[in-house]
Each structure stands twice: as structure tokens, then as C-alpha cells.
């Protein structure tokens, strides 16, 4: 449930809701850290839930001694009223069997808050790319049906590529094709929930406008028995630097992020 920091519940009607999926390389979460710290978003509350493993630590976005001692927990909500942007940051993994209930509770809250759109930042295993994908940029998007019309033109002008369908069962030749996001955590669940359309019933999850951005298909390097994910990020801020484990700088996310915000946060 959402618990505000202050006494009153903020009005999020018409806001764009930005969130990460806990996915391979933690790309979505790292991107969220960059967004929150770059835009200097302020914390407006917590998403208190039994679905995530508890964790606490001091403020990861500290810029001075004064704000370095603010406690942070595993799921926090930040806002930037000037851009009508609200962001959820997730800092731990799901407890077993709790990922689907989390998606339902979260989307239910997003709907009841009257947010206009949801943007999910995610990632997927790069070794699942086919030959065509290997030759193109490591960035894909997916839109739920109700978002498509409003942003299609802008997306086309940015030359983004839509996520391709792949065989549901790769081992079988004539398998049906579907959207698969290996290593994407709850991304697929959020996409399916966002797409769900119940024609003659009132459903709180009906047609949640959802855009999923697979920001970086992470290039996996096999090193000393560990799958080392090289996260492609440009990070000008010290707080974000500290959070990265294997920094390899590319332009992809740095170029993409402003585009993301201009398309969806207007």
C-alpha cells in the first residue's frame, strides 16, 4: 500500500508513472536511480508491501551531509510535479510467489491514483537475441493497446524498434510466436496485466496504459564462473556511480533517457 511521507496524500491524477522491473543486470533499477538523482525528484512516500525482501540503508541520492542520513527502504515513491512524473524505485527482490500479487496491488494503486500512463524500464538476456537483433541496437519498446495511438508518431520519429515476438517454445520448430522477455522479471506480467481487457466487466486492471522499455539488452560476459552483466550507462553523478557494480560506459541509455521522458512525460 502507498503510505505518504507527509500528512496528506499527494494528487497524482494525470501523472506519468515510471517504474523499474527487477531484471537482469538491474538495468531498470539503475536507470531509475539515474532519473531520480538527475531530476532531483523528492520522496513523497513508500510502497509498503509484504511482497519484497525488506532492506534499509541511508539515502543513496545524498548530495550533502544534511540529507545523507535519511533512511531509505525497499520500495519508495518519488515525484517531480513540474513534469507530472512519479517514480517508484524497487531496491530488493520479490519474496517467492509474491511477484504477481505485487503487480496486482501496484497496478491497482496506480489506477486508483488516476495516473495517465505507466512506463516500465526493464532488461532482458542478450544471449536470447536472434541474428537480426544482434545487428541492431540493444533497445526495444512495447506498448499496450491503449497507449499505441497517442505516442506512435513520436516513437516513429525516434526510430525505436518494437520488441519482436519469438517462439513460445524455442525447441519446437512450428511453435507459436509470443512476446518473451527472459530475465525481465515482472515485465511480462505487467505487460499482460496492462493489456488485459475485460469487455463486459468492471476490472480495476482494465486497459492500464503501459509502455515497457527494454532499455538495454544486457551484454553478458562469462567471467570466472559468474554471469557478469556489463551495464551500459553514462552516469555523471557520484551517488549513481556508487550503486553500479560493473560500469561500462556507452551512449545508449544517455541518449535514450531524455527521449523517453520527452515522449511519455509530456
Amino acid at each position, binding site marked *: 500500500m502507498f*503510505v505518504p511521507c507527509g500528512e496528506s496524500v499527494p494528487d497524482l491524477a494525470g501523472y506519468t508513472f515510471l517504474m523499474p522491473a527487477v531484471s537482469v543486470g538491474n538495468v531498470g533499477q539503475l536507470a531509475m536511480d539515474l532519473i531520480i538523482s538527475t531530476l532531483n525528484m523528492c520522496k513523497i512516500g513508500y510502497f509498503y508491501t509484504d511482497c519484497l525482501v*525488506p532492506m*534499509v*540503508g*541511508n539515502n543513496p541520492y545524498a548530495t550533502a551531509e544534511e540529507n545523507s*542520513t535519511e533512511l531509505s527502504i525497499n520500495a519508495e515513491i518519488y515525484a517531480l510535479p513540474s513534469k507530472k512524473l512519479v517514480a517508484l524505485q524497487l531496491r530488493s527482490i520479490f519474496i517467492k510467489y509474491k511477484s504477481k500479487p505485487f503487480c496486482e496491488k501496484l497496478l491497482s494503486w496506480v489506477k486508483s491514483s488516476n495516473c495517465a500512463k505507466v512506463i516500465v524500464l526493464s532488461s532482458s538476456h542478450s*544471449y536470447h537475441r536472434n541474428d537480426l537483433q544482434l545487428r541492431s541496437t540493444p533497445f526495444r519498446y512495447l506498448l499496450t493497446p491503449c497507449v499505441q495511438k497517442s505516442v506512435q508518431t513520436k516513437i516513429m520519429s525516434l526510430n525505436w524498434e518494437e520488441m519482436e515476438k519469438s517462439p513460445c517454445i524455442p525447441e519446437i520448430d512450428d511453435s507459436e510466436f509470443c512476446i518473451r522477455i*527472459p530475465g525481465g522479471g515482472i515485465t511480462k506480467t505487467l505487460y499482460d496485466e496492462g493489456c488485459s481487457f475485460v469487455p463486459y466487466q468492471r476490472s480495476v486492471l482494465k486497459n492500464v496504459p503501459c509502455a515497457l522499455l527494454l532499455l538495454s539488452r544486457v551484454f553478458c560476459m*562469462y567471467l570466472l564462473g559468474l554471469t557478469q552483466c556489463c551495464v551500459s550507462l553514462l552516469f555523471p553523478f557520484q551517488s549513481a556511480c*556508487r550503486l553500479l557494480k560493473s560500469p561500462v560506459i556507452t551512449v545508449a541509455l544517455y541518449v535514450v533517457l531524455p527521449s523517453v521522458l520527452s515522449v511519455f512525460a509530456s
Partner: protein
Amino acid sequence: MRRAGTSRSGRDAGAGTMAATFFGEVVKAPCRAGTEDEEEEEEEGKRETAEDREVRRQLARKREVRLFRRQTKTSLEVSLLEKYPCSKFIIAIGNNAVAFLSSFVMSSGVWEEVGCANLWNEWCRTTDTTHLSPAEAFCVFYHLKSSPSVVLCQCSCYVAEDQQYQWLEKVFGSCARKNMQVTILTCRHVTDYKTSESTSSLHSPFLKALKTQNFKEPPCCSLLEQPNIVHDLPAAVLSYCQVWRIPAVLYLCYTDVMKLDLITVEAFKPILSSRSLKGLVKNIPQSTEILKKLMTTNEIQSNIYT
């Protein structure tokens, strides 16, 4: 601020998350995002039969956290702090923190047991909490007879991540209790401490603190620096306090000896001057003697020849 999960084969049964080691053997590699579990859960959900669901329900029932009074053998119908409202809640998690509170706080007053948590998980298989031996893991609640608004919890058992929220509900309840202060004591291994300083300059055991926004008094030691984080029950309690705006402080002792150790326990001594414990500790030299005795008893018990 991230945790890795263990790798499973999931949907990609052919490829899996395999990696080659330096020596050429192929092993399953863990994924830092812990996402393979999600894919496996999805598959399991689709294949689940009524029998599987029943097994899962029974396991969930077995893992339920129950609070009860050992004296009357009755369960608590409401949360512990609803039944015993308190202004001070002090909790020790782990054997060293428990030994500290036993020697310095509990020996200085008369404490009455008000509840006991019964929980089962892979690490804590306590089934019968009515006849606990001192060596067994336990989670017991006491209040000070002379001032019943001071409640203390001695928790030496591991509360698993799927039980932590339940534990909080059974102890704190779902309503925020604003007029109380919470103090949490626990230990972590010094190898968990991340710092840019040289490890030779670290003199363990040492104390670090984390506090909620509403905790206004200065802590008894320096605050835990980024990027260090805390997990498990201490994190669950502190998160609850932060969300519901309860003043709370966590004192974390980083030590290289996780088993019961005199030096580690004594590292908590700076907390004796804090407002939470002031007035609760009467005779420090006597308490130190009690602590030494506790260590000796424990050493005999842990002798490999006995």
C-alpha cells in the same frame, strides 16, 4: 542495494544461465536480479494441481508466525503491542545482542514474560516452545514489572523473509503506534561491511547506527555509510518504523565472530548511555560479571568433545 537470486533453468531449459569457469567447467551462474525464480514460478503456476496447492497451503500454515503466552498456553488474539501498549520497545536479534540485553538490562530489573513467538523455517525448527532449553533458538517478549510500558524482545531465532511481515503484524499490529520509541540491536559479519578504507584500518567489532526520520536524539555511534544496507528482521522492523513515522534506531555491531563472543557483546556498551537504555541498567560491573559467566557456560556447551 540489490540482491542476487540463485539461477534456475526456468523457461530456457536448453540454454539456462550457464557459465564457464576459469577451469573450463560449465556451471549454473547466479543472476544478480534474481529473475529466474519468477519464470519458474510462472511455469509452476500453470502446471499446479489441486494437490500442489494443498501442499503449498499446508507449508504456508506450518510457516505461520504464532504468538502465545507460555504460562497460559493460549495464543494472543490481538497483536502483542495492542495487548501490552508500550512507550519503549527494545529488541535484540542474534545471540550476541541477546547476551548483551540479558546481562546488562534483564539482570538489572524484574522482567515478566508476556509472549513468545512460535515459528518454523529451514533454520529455526522450534516446534515446542513450552519447554525451551537455553541453547535453543527462541523469540520471547518481556515487560518490566516496575514499568510495564517498557517491552523487550529477545530474538535468537532466524525469522525468514516470508515470515518477517507476519512477525511485524503479530507484534506491532496493523495500526501505527506513534507514542513509542524502538531500539534494535543486532550483529553482522564484518565481511558484509563495504568501505573504501583499507580493511587493516577497521578494528572490529565496531558499532554503526541507522535511524528513522522521527528519531531525533543523536545516536551513540556513527551512522552506517552508503552503500551498506541491512536485511532480515532488523531491516523489517526499521522499515516499519520509518514508514509509520515511529522514532527508531538500529545499532549494528560488525564483528568477525558471529558465535557468542565477549568482545562482540561488549562492543554494544556505548548504547548504555542512550536514552532508551538509561534507567534500565543498574550495575554495570555486576552485569559484566554475569556476561562472563554466560560466556563460560556457553563455551562448555560448545566443546566439541561434549
